[in-house]
């Protein structure tokens, strides 16, 4: 029997498409990152590692890494913890769970760009509803006393709220001190509903008999049962949720583009935004590609960590 060549025809198209659409762009980006090419130029020069050198030495890129990492470190733990907490609370409900699920999932379904514009209005320092509400508490002694700590005998002017009442409330998106935190807040608001849904799915796969066994064994409090059953049984879900949240937070772009454009003074200059600014706005394709490659390496590391953990630790 002669060896047929049919198998090449079966795998060929898939491999070709993969090379063309996935591998080739990465290779091209890697090559471009070694050049000073700009779109429209007839030629380019090979400049070796110069772009990468800039990336790791210049202050503005330093700020980029700081902004991205700070954003991830703020959004991931908080959105994961909130997602798990709300999933546990919702799954313990007898009625009304569906309603809460729908409400918490709304931000996930909404277009982030549209929501960013809504947040922009809400956070506007002059006409925004956020500062309006905060300001309205200043002349109500109950709220003022509570928030400024003067009830507990502290000097109200020492507190954040007290001094803000005295002077002015922050320019949430225009102040270097607050901008990244505000962007992260919107990120958490958007992401935790998604994590909640993943955790709810994870919770349904925990066998009920395990909880009953734990009860028989003397795990009387809900906390004991959570430690003994829920937390370990959610292992695969934890890994998945954390990885997905990290990758999605590294990818944050729409809110930054719509609200701060990387500012003020590059405090929200996250990686994808930098990629966009360098590669598209300033037409420095070489630099943009270098940032892309570094970004891909970050994502690759996250994915490898996930694969490694999934295979080792959390599947029993």
């Amino acid at each position: 029997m002669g060896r047929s060549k049919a198998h090449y025809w079966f795998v060929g198209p898939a491999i070709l498409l993969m090379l063309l659409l996935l591998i080739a762009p990465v290779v091209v980006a890697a090559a471009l990152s070694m050049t000073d090419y700009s779109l429209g130029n007839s030629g380019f020069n090979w400049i070796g590692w110069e772009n990468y050198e800039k990336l790791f030495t210049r202050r503005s890129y330093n700020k980029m890494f700081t902004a991205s990492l700070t954003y991830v470190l703020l959004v991931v733990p908080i959105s994961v913890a909130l997602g798990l907490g709300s999933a546990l609370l919702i799954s313990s409900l007898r009625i009304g769970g569906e309603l809460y699920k729908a409400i918490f999932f709304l931000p996930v379904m909404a277009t982030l760009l549209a929501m960013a514009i809504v947040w922009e209005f809400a956070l506007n320092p002059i006409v925004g509803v956020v500062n309006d509400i905060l300001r309205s508490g200043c002349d109500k002694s109950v709220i003022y006393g509570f928030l400024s700590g003067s009830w507990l005998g502290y000097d109200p002017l020492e507190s954040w709220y007290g001094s803000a009442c005295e002077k002015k409330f922050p320019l949430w998106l225009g102040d270097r001190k607050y901008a990244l935190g505000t962007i992260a807040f919107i990120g958490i608001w958007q992401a935790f509903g998604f994590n909640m849904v993943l955790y709810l799915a994870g919770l349904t796969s925990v066998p009920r008999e395990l909880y009953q066994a734990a009860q028989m064994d003397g795990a009387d409090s809900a906390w004991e049962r959570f430690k003994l059953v829920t937390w370990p049984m959610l292992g695969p879900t934890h890994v998945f949720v954390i990885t997905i949240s990290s990758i999605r937070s590294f990818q944050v772009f729409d809110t930054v583009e719509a609200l701060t454009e990387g500012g003020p003074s590059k405090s929200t200059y996250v990686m994808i935004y930098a990629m966009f600014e360098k590669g598209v706005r300033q037409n420095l394709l070489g630099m943009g590609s270098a940032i892309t490659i570094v970004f891909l390496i970050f994502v690759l590391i996250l994915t490898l960590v996930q694969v490694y953990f999934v295979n080792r630790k959390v599947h029993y």
Partner: protein
Amino acid sequence: MASIALSRVTKSYGGQSVINGVDLDIHDGEFLTLVGPSGCGKSTTLRIIAGLETQTAGDVSIDGSLVNETRPSLRDLAMVFQSYALYPHLTVRQNLITPLRLRDLNFWERFPLLGHLVPSRRAKMAQIEKEVQLVSETLKIEPLLARKPGQLSGGQRQRVALGRAMVRNPAAFLMDEPLSNLDASLRVHMRAELSALHKKLKTTFVYVTHDQAEALTMSDRIAVMMDGDLLQLGSPEEVYQNPQDIRVAEFIGSPKMNILPGYCDELGNITCAGFSLDGTLEIPSPGPVSVGFRPEHLTLTEPNADQSLAGKLTYKENLGSDVFFHITQEGIEGSIIIRAQPLISTPQQPGDIIHCTPVPGKPLVFGPDGQRLDFKALAQSGTSS
């Protein structure tokens, strides 16, 4: 060791009643089996005893003290689940330690990491390790202690689940179909092991199963439940030979008891399928009745023999040690099953007409309501017709 008593326990889910007033006294050290078809309320009854579910009404007491409001862990019972419910992320050793750790160590001694600094922890852990060792020796699971449940076979998991129940030395064991996930030969083997374990531990066992063979082989007493009612409670022999309800008669015994329509006259004489039974009913209930024959209580006879029942052989089921003949007769629904020794059975072929006759004194009569109707005592008899 403990006795367990249920009194008028009922349970309903949203108006749907699943247990209708069960009274049950489980003696100290007894092996009691709750048996019935699926959905009869036997598992729910067990869970109510365990405290995993709360009865709608009625009382549960253990050793004479009311436990209606007592948490499951404080009832001092251990449960073996059908799925075993082992903690998959813990090794076998940790699985066995868990109930003791939760019972014997206080909050601070259990605290992660910091707990190791509490001085009293060490002595307690040493004691726990000793008990785990003892149990794993009894169950011969020592080589498995370092493995996780996912790496064990079904039979091994079953042992570990038993071990986790045993380490606490509970007052009673509750078992919810523990053998139903095992393959057939292992199940038969584990039956013998469970019986031996019961003899050794001398603790009360409450065992739930839908398999009447398990119930008959292991129990001291059987409680047959159906549709939320406790139909009969008695020793395996009693339940098999003397079922008080037609549903019990049909459920216990394999193959099923043959039920034929019969008729009772004014004097209490029964006629059925063309012949009349020996003896008369104690209290005649004129009208239609049901007559039950166990397969082993029908014997093959020559054609034209007195008092015989004839039918066409449709299927011959050879089990090696026994042969079951399935015969059909016109006017009777379903088939009648007869047990015979393989030696007598050889010549008949499907399609042949077969004759059989009941063993005198063995048929059981049930009234239209399914209740058993007793024959007059046969003491002075011998007057076979």
